């Protein structure tokens, strides 16, 4: 075998492997997408035809509409609260050395380790104990905690990438500490904060496990409503709403990557 043929074969194998991995990662979403286009009354794969009627039903189904609205309310409050709290914590961890800093960092990233099931169950008991039931407040509290590590991470990375000389330069040019913050620090952290907010929003919109515990029928979010639906019906409406959720999330991530540079936000630049 000539070296050139070997190289070509090698690169062929490489691309085949890449294609396999891509297929493996996207197959579940593709199966759902295809099923959602089926004209059949039952969930079937592969679909026997092509129809958009389940999409029409999905967007007009009152439970889904209400759940989507709930989800938007919960997400808006949860991501915004998480952004405020997370930014403060990120600033604290980046700028100050204090006893218990390592412990604080560990606690703040604990939602990555504790199963959502446990978190949801804990908040459910807490809600009952505090007498706030399964209200919006409880759902939002649970979601803030779940998305907090991602917001902190995003803002923290932006802070790390911020040249500390910029703040000194601003002070040297006559900017008071407040103006250094408002004219230099915050504008430069903005992409990181926006990215953190967006990641939080996507996670909150699609969170299911913990939400199942802390939502009531009145406060249920879209993934919970979908779960309730699939327990009662077996038509492709569920596939259509799932497809919409996937497409919506993809669009959000695409926009975030395009305008905010998610790659830059979520990893520390080497410069």
């Amino acid at each position, binding site marked *: 075998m000539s070296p050139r043929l070997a190289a070509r074969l090698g690169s062929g194998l490489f691309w085949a492997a890449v294609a396999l991995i891509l297929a493996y990662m996207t197959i579940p979403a593709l199966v759902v997408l295809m099923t959602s286009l089926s004209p059949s009354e039952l969930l079937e794969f592969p679909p026997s035809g092509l129809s958009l009627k389940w999409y029409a039903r999905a967007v007009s189904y009152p439970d889904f509409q209400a759940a989507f609205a709930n989800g938007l309310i919960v997400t808006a409050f949860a991501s915004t609260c998480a952004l405020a709290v997370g930014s403060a914590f990120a600033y604290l961890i980046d700028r100050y050395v204090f006893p218990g800093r390592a412990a604080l960092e560990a606690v703040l990233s604990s939602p990555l380790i504790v199963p959502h099931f446990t978190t949801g169950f804990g908040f459910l008991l807490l809600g009952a104990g505090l007498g706030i039931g399964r209200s919006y407040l409880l759902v939002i509290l649970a979601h803030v905690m779940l998305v907090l590590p991602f917001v902190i991470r995003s803002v923290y990375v932006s802070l790390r990438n911020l*040249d500390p*000389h*910029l703040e*000194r*330069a*601003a*002070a*040297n*040019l*006559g*900017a*008071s*500490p407040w*103006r*250094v913050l408002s*004219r*230099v620090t915050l*504008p*430069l952290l903005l992409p990181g904060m926006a990215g953190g907010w967006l990641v939080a929003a996507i996670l909150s919109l699609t969170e299911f496990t913990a939400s199942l515990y802390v939502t009531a029928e009145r406060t249920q979010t879209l993934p919970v409503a979908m779960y309730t639906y699939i327990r009662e019906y077996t038509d492709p409406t569920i596939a259509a709403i799932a497809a919409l959720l996937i497409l919506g999330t993809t669009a959000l991530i695409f926009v975030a990557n395009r305008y905010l540079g998610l790659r830059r936000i979520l990893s520390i630049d080497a410069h």
Partner: protein
Amino acid sequence: MGQGAAAGTPPFAAETAVELVGVGKSFGPVTAVRELSLAIRRGEVLTLLGPSGCGKTTLLNMIAGFEEPSAGRILIDGRDVTEVPPYLRDTGMVFQSYALFPHMDVFENVAFGLRMRKLPKAKIAAEVMRALEMVKLGGLERRRVRQLSGGQQQRVALARAIVLRPKVLLLDEPLSALDKNLRAQMQVELKELHERTRLTTLFVTHDQGEALSLSDRIVVMSRGEIQQIAAPIELYRHPANSFVASFIGEINRLPPARCRLSGGEIVFSLAGIELTAARRDDLALGDGQQVHLFVRPEHLAVAAEAAGGRNRIACRVVTHVYQGTHTLTRVEAGALGVLQLRVPGGAVIERAPPGSEIGVEINLDEAVALPD
């Protein structure tokens, strides 16, 4: 001025722009700057020169207000600013990394300080344009700073500082990030800029070439202490100690020598040979004193014959480093060790190839003798 005496602070001379009085800085057990006093004269370029870790940047940061001194007072224009936060000190700093605001264009970077002072819009625009013209960046005011070359960023950083006409301009190794040719060009421009603005300037560098060509006076620092304060020529010709002698320019350090006064001459006996120098005012040496002789490479010459004649020693050529206008030749000089010669042109490379025997004449007329 001179209002200080009544208030119990030291009298402050009008020609002094910045004064450090017993200023020192320790970080925990580590002393970065030993307590020292220093005055920067109005309108001069004073350079802090020293190897990294000598405390020069710490000193600069204390004047700007980024570091708090552990001891002493700092006065700018006669006002004690030791407790004053950086944004009220009116110093203009140019950072090594330039520290330009990446979210603003060139104009906004230069305008930043003027906006902080709440000047009227028209005045800001005029001042910014004038400063940009001064650093030869006219027409680039709407560029993003990321789109600029290193040299251009450097100029923006300069314009941003000088536009405020600070009481003292603080330059923290501003040329070290530039490549060699650009650095030489910026040295000339910095000099011209100073001619025009006459801003009191404190320049921090570890590059002795930069220090010699830009400064009115140089403060040589080592390990948090001032070694010598002098004009560049003075520093080069009369280093106060062996640290300064070896840090400024190239120099040959000869083995310890014992002096003997003989008529109009001083005879140095070292390593079994004798070197003689005419008596000079600045070589106030006693009979029998132990000294180290320091000789610049340009004061060593290739002699016509290998031996004989005054201060002539036999050497073997080790290497030549050709530098265009001159050649740096290293020779093995027996008991004197390895010596470096600065020979004009490049003819010596063919005349005395490595390994050949030559005579080297040591001219002690400008040699420095420092006590052992």
